[in-house]
């Protein structure tokens, strides 16, 4: 078995090298899904979700995120492959598997005429749990829905409906929670609340898998990040490692006097001139090329190129993400 101490250089899928060594709560093996239309939405997906982590699944529209979640939760039939949830096969042992999982779907599919209280109690019953008003009350209070408990769902705003769906998913005390774009169409305050709630849930041992289009969200919340593109998992990595490994850093220099061209002796550096030659930007790999920053500054001094200001900038996950899912140029 591979040592877990050294991380292999940037590679496409690292889930197996790590996944085998840690306690995974969801284990997806060679999963494919071909829809009736003939469209292959998942291509041999392998993924291990670790117990107790917050896992963010990123990917552009149509990448297969919802399909993947659907297979695990039982709303989509897999074409081939296997999924284990807490050790239970999601098909052969669906009762045990599903009773551990809560799903908040991407679409705002709610009842209309039922009250918030009734619909949440319904969910609990559906998942085979006896009535527990105290738990439902706790969930509704945490989601600021307690005042709305007697309201019909159709009278609620979109953000409240989203919270009702979360309450339904939490009604049966799941160990695994899937949040498919929980913050789509949710205002800033509510998004904060939701992040807070997700972290609090994790504190209680719940494993959370969320999809999002807000990279900021993944950056803030996730322990690990997976990127899916065109039905393939292209990357699974610790967020911190990912930032470290993939993160480009930029050194931005405001020059004393503008340059017309970059001196040929600096060809080894990835440099760009902007602001009519008044600004020089050096792009380098944060982890591997840290030393180059010093040598560049030294070389500039040798050439007599002075600067008035200097700043560095680290690339965000968003940039990493875009560079991954863009077709290779």
């Amino acid at each position: 078995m591979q040592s877990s101490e050294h991380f292999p250089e940037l590679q496409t899928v690292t889930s197996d090298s790590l996944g085998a060594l840690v306690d995974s709560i969801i284990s997806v093996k060679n999963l494919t899904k071909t829809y009736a239309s003939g469209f292959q939405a998942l291509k041999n997906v392998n993924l291990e979700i670790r117990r107790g982590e917050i896992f963010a699944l990123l990917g552009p529209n149509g990448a297969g995120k919802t399909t993947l979640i659907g297979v695990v939760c039982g709303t989509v039939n897999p074409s081939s492959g296997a999924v284990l949830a807490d050790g239970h096969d999601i098909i052969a042992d669906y009762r045990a598997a599903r009773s551990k999982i809560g799903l908040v779907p991407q679409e705002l599919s709610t009842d209309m005429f039922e009250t918030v209280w009734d619909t949440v109690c319904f969910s609990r019953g559906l998942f085979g749990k006896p009535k527990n008003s105290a738990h439902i009350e706790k969930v509704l209070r945490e989601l600021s829905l307690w005042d709305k408990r007697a309201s019909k769902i159709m009278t609620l705003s979109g953000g409240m409906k989203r919270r009702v769906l979360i309450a339904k998913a939490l009604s049966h005390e799941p160990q695994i929670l899937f949040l498919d774009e929980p913050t789509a169409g949710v205002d800033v305050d509510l998004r904060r609340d939701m992040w807070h709630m997700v972290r609090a849930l994790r504190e209680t041992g719940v494993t959370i898998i969320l999809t999002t289009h807000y990279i900021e969200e993944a950056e803030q919340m996730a322990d690990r990040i997976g990127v899916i593109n065109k039905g393939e998992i292209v990357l699974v990595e610790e967020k911190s490692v990912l930032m470290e490994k993939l993160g480009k850093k930029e050194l931005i220099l405001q020059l004393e006097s503008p340059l017309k061209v970059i001196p040929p002796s600096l060809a080894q550096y990835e440099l760009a001139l902007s602001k009519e030659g008044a600004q020089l930007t050096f792009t380098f790999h944060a982890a591997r090329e840290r030393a180059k920053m010093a040598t560049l500054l030294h070389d500039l001094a040798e050439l007599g190129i002075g600067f008035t200001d200097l700043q560095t900038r680290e690339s965000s996950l968003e940039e990493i993400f875009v560079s991954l899912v863009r077709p290779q140029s």
Partner: protein
Amino acid sequence: MNGHAIRAIYSFEMARTWRTLSQSIAGPVISTSLYFVVFGSAIGSRMTAIGGVSYAAFIIPGLTMLSLLNESISNASFGIYMPKFSGTIYEVLSAPISYLEIVLGYVGAAASKSIVLGTVILLTARVFVDYHIAHPFWMFAFLVLTAITFSLFGFIIGLWADGFQKLQLVPMLIVTPLTFLGGSFYSIKMLPPFWQHVTLFNPVVYLISGFRWSFYGASDVSVGVSMTMTLVFLALCLGVARWLLKSGYHLKA
């Protein structure tokens, strides 16, 4: 067995019924009353008794069956179609619940509602006609079996339908003609011999005949055959519903 889940679906569906009590109960009661006024009193007064039973009394079992069939089908088909249409079905699909339990919840609720409705219609009929019930046990047995069978049939239609048109197509094009031609308003013995034979392919004939037998002790086909055919149709619907759910038909992509 996930009893909590069955109860959850059942109560959810029953709650829907109570919420729409006026349409659920009043509608069929009013339309049945109209049938009695028109067929029972107005036209019936000019009709001769059939097998010693006044025409108004004769049509009661048939009319009750007519409502029972229509309501069972529309309730059950709507019950499963709506969550499919609104998307809330995701929750049932992701729940630790077997196909049989899904059927028990949805069909059980639709059938319960039909049974209540059938009883209410019979009570309403009492206002118009002084009928008697010769075999109350068998009357109830036919009522319950028919409610279950056609709720299941409606459930299948609700699974199959991928639009509101389809939801209404089968009841309109198949069920209504079959009930009207199934002897609701006449004894099939009144038909020419050829049509009597054709009629025997209509499952509704057996339901109405058996049901009428439980009232007046006389029937078009023997009550044993009626009961057997009812059970066969029930088994058939169960098989189809199970197969549809197992394949995830129109529910799972």
